[in-house]
């Protein structure tokens, strides 16, 4: 490192890597969505439960999509099979959830 400190030339030859920035932005989005969820429950949770639950689920899905796209790299190219596997898993999981809620509550 010390013997070859030729920064400009070196940086040109190396691969281009993504910076920390977009991951920190994803992190800030996650924090904000989490905060919205907690504050909503603490403030209007008992006044308007239906609205709160819908908002909570929207916040959760948004946060999961952001984390999977950026942190799990699912938005990068070459991720067709991972998306197929995950959507397949989610469809089966969602079916199980809808079925058991329907069974018990209707």
């Amino acid at each position, binding site marked *: 490192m010390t*013997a*070859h400190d030729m920064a400009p030339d*070196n940086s040109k*030859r*190396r*691969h281009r*890597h*993504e910076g*920390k920035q977009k*991951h*920190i932005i994803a*992190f800030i989005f*996650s*924090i904000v969505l*989490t905060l919205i*969820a*907690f504050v909503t*429950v*603490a403030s209007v*949770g*008992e006044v308007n*439960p239906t609205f*709160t*639950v819908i908002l*909570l*689920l929207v*916040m*959760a899905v948004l*946060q*999961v999509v952001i*984390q*999977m796209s*950026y*942190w*799990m790299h699912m938005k990068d190219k*070459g991720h067709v*099979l*991972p998306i197929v*596997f*995950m959507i*397949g*898993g*989610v469809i*089966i*999981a*969602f079916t*199980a*959830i809808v*079925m*058991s*809620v329907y*069974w*018990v*509550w209707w």
Partner: protein
Amino acid sequence: MSAPAHHVDDQWPHEPEKATLEGRNKVIGFWLFLGGEAVLFGTLFATFLALRNQIGDGPSAAELFKLPMIATVTAILLVSSLTSVFAIQAMHRKEVKAMLNWLIVTVILGFCFLGMEIYEFVEYVHEGHTFTTSAFSSSFYTLVGFHGAHVAFGVAWISILIAQVRKKGLNLVTAPKVYVSAIYWHFIDVVWVFIFTVVYLMGKVG
């Protein structure tokens, strides 16, 4: 054009985890496993959603859960997910020391999460919320405990990987392992997003 001293750096591919067939297979196979994990947690969520109001003689979710505690463990897991992203970015640049440090931070945060979860469960048991108290308590401990077991497994796994990279170095064999463990860790965080939403926050709402 390329000085011999930089030979190793130039050999390090853009995505070392996918530079070999074995690495690519490992990543694809792991995604298939995560699809199965999504089904596993989905069915546990289904059970919990069906049974969450059957509290019998035990305390209800709204009585048990404390928001500051849940917010703290959520923050811990969220930060640990970010530090494991930083570990993978360091791995892509072949900065072994930085990668190991970020992994160590991730493991420490994982231990903090586990410690708080154990404390939380002990407190619930003292308040009369044991595994066999009600259908709600059984499905709660199964779902959240299963997630906790995944965190414990991840902590052990990443710790072993840290030891292995220290011993064998970062190369095209060890890089896919580190990458896959980070994907696993993010998945654990993603599951936690649904747990704090569906179990804790919706439990508070009623």
